[in-house]
C-alpha cells in the first residue's frame, strides 16, 4: 500500500515535470528553431560566466531562452487594466493552464515495472475511462481563454476570446470523433490498454501501430490538435496583425507567461496524445518483453529492466519528434482566414471524422471483434 502511494506521488510529479520541461524545450525551439528555419541567427547573447565564449564554443541561446526569458517575464510588472474584472482577470490564466496539466496524468509513458514484488504501471493514473477523462479535461480548456478575453475590458481581447472559443468548440468535435474511432479499433477506453494493443507486428515486419490502422484518424487528430493548441496556422485567436495579441493583449508579467506556458503545454499534450493513440506509445518496434524479434527471424535478448527503460525512452523520443514536427509546421505555414478555418473544421474534418467512425464500425463488425 505504502509503496504504491509513494510510486503514485512520484509518477504524478514526474508527469507534470515532464510536461513543464517539454514546454521549456518548445520555448527554446520556438526561438532558436524558428531562427534555423528562417535562416536567422536567433538569440545568442546571454552567457552566465562567458566561459563557453572564451573557449570558442558557439552560443546556442539556451540560457537566453530557458533562463533569461522566463526570469524576465516573471519579474515584470503585473498590470491589470482599468475597468477589468480583477478577480477573473487573475483567475483566467490558471483556469487555462489547469486542465492541460491534469490531462498529463492519464498518458502512459512506459510498460509496468516490478519494484520489491509490486507491479507498478508507468502511468500516473490508470483510469478505465481514460479517454473520457481526456475529452472532459480538454473540453474545459475553453474557459480560461474565453474569460481572459472577456475580463480584460478590451475589444481586441474580447474578439480574440470569442474566436478562441468558437475555434476550440469546433475542433473539439473533430478531435472527439478521431478518438472515438481509435477507441472502437482497440475496444477499450483505457489508454494503457490501447498502447498494449499496439504491440506486435503484422506480416512479420510492420509494427501494429494505430497509424497503420487509422491513418485518417491520425491526420484528423493532428490537425484538430494543432487547432486546439491555437498555434499557427490556427492562431486566429491571437493573430498579431489584427488583434494586437488577442485574448491575452491585456496581460503582462507572470500571467502572460502562464498563457504562453499553456500554449506550449497544449502542444506537448497533443504530441503525447498522437504518440499514445497512433505511434504505439512506449512500444519499441519489434521489442517484446524478452528482447528484439527482428524481421527475418533474428533475435536479440534484452533484460527486463532494459526493456522498460527502452520503452520510456521510445515514448520520449516519439513525443519530442512530434513536438519538433508541430513546431516546424508552425514556422512554415501562413495563418488561415477565419472563414477558411470554420469551413475546414465543419465541412472538412467533422464529415471526415463521421465517415471514419462509420467505416471503423463496419470493419469492427465485419471482422467479428464485438463481444
Amino acid at each position: 500500500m505504502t509503496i504504491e502511494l509513494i510510486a503514485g506521488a512520484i509518477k504524478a510529479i514526474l508527469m507534470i515535470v515532464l510536461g513543464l520541461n517539454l514546454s521549456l524545450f518548445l520555448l527554446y525551439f520556438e526561438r532558436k528553431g524558428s531562427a534555423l528555419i528562417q535562416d536567422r541567427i536567433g538569440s545568442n547573447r546571454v552567457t552566465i560566466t562567458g566561459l563557453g565564449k572564451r573557449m570558442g564554443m558557439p552560443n546556442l541561446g539556451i540560457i537566453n531562452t530557458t533562463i533569461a526569458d522566463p526570469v524576465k517575464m516573471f519579474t515584470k510588472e503585473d498590470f491589470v487594466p482599468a475597468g477589468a474584472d480583477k478577480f477573473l482577470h487573475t483567475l483566467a490564466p490558471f483556469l487555462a493552464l489547469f486542465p492541460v496539466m491534469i490531462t498529463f496524468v492519464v498518458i502512459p509513458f512506459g510498460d509496468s515495472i516490478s519494484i520489491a514484488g509490486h507491479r507498478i504501471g508507468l502511468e500516473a493514473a490508470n483510469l478505465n475511462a481514460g479517454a473520457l477523462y481526456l475529452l472532459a479535461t480538454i473540453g474545459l480548456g475553453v474557459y480560461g481563454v474565453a474569460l481572459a478575453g472577456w475580463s480584460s475590458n478590451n475589444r481586441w481581447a474580447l474578439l480574440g476570446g470569442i474566436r478562441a472559443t468558437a475555434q476550440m468548440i469546433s475542433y473539439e468535435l473533430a478531435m472527439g470523433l478521431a478518438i472515438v474511432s481509435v477507441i472502437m479499433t482497440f475496444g477499450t477506453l483505457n489508454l494503457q490498454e490501447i498502447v498494449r494493443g499496439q504491440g506486435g507486428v503484422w506480416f512479420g515486419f510492420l509494427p501494429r501501430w494505430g497509424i497503420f490502422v487509422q491513418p485518417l484518424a491520425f491526420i484528423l487528430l493532428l490537425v484538430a490538435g494543432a487547432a486546439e493548441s491555437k498555434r499557427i496556422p490556427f492562431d486566429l485567436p491571437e493573430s498579431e496583425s489584427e488583434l494586437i495579441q488577442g485574448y491575452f493583449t491585456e496581460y503582462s508579467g507572470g500571467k502572460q507567461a502562464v498563457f504562453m506556458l499553456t500554449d506550449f503545454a497544449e502542444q506537448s499534450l497533443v504530441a503525447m496524445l498522437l504518440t499514445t493513440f497512433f505511434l504505439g506509445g512506449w512500444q519499441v518496434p519489434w521489442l517484446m518483453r524478452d528482447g528484439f524479434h527482428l524481421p527475418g527471424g533474428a533475435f536479440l535478448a534484452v533484460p527486463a529492466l532494459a526493456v522498460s527503460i527502452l520503452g520510456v525512452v521510445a515514448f520520449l523520443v516519439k513525443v519530442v519528434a512530434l513536438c519538433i514536427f508541430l513546431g516546424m509546421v508552425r514556422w512554415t505555414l501562413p495563418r488561415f482566414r477565419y472563414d477558411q478555418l470554420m469551413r475546414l473544421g465543419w465541412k472538412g474534418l467533422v464529415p471526415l471524422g463521421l465517415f471514419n467512425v462509420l467505416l471503423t464500425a463496419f470493419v469492427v463488425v465485419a471482422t467479428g471483434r464485438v463481444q
Partner: protein
Amino acid sequence: MPPFVYIFLGALAVVSALGVVVQRNPIHSLLALIGTLMTVAILFIAEDAVVVGFLQIIVYAGAIMVLFLFVIWLLNLQVETGPTGHLVLKFFGSLGAALLVAELFSILARPHLQVKFTRQPAGYGSLASLAGKLFTDYLVAFEVTSVLLLAAVVGSVALARKLPGTDDPRAARDVAS
C-alpha cells in the same frame, strides 16, 4: 466514498448553486453554475457512475455552458445594479417559491422516500453496462431521440441559412416557413 467527502462536495455544490442566484454579474453566475456541475460530476464519479460523471463534464460543463457564455456575450447582458421587477410580481414570486419549498419538504419528509445508500455491483456505471442498456432495453427511445435531435439540427440550419443573392437571413426564413 467516505461521508466527509460526500458532505464536503454536497456543501460545495449547494454553495455554488446559491452563487448562481445571488451573483449580480451574469458571467459570475455562469462560473458558479459550472462549479455546481463539476461538483455534481465528481459526486457521480465517486459513486462509480463514471460515465455519467464524465459525460456531465463533457456535455454540460464543456459545451452547453460555452453556449450560455456566447448568449451572455451576444445579448450583451449587463451587471444588475439593483433589484428589478414590479412589486406585485415579486410578491407572487416569493409566494410561489414558498409554496414550492413547502411542497418539497412535504414530499421529502415521508419516511419511505428517504435516501438509502446501497452498494451497486462493481462496473455498474461503466461504459459497457450503460451501452448494453442503451442499445437493448432503451433502443427505441435512443433512436427516436437521435432522429429528433437530427431534425432540430436540420431545422436550425434551415432557419439560419442565407439564400444565395440575399444578405438578409430573414428572407431565407420566410422561404423555409
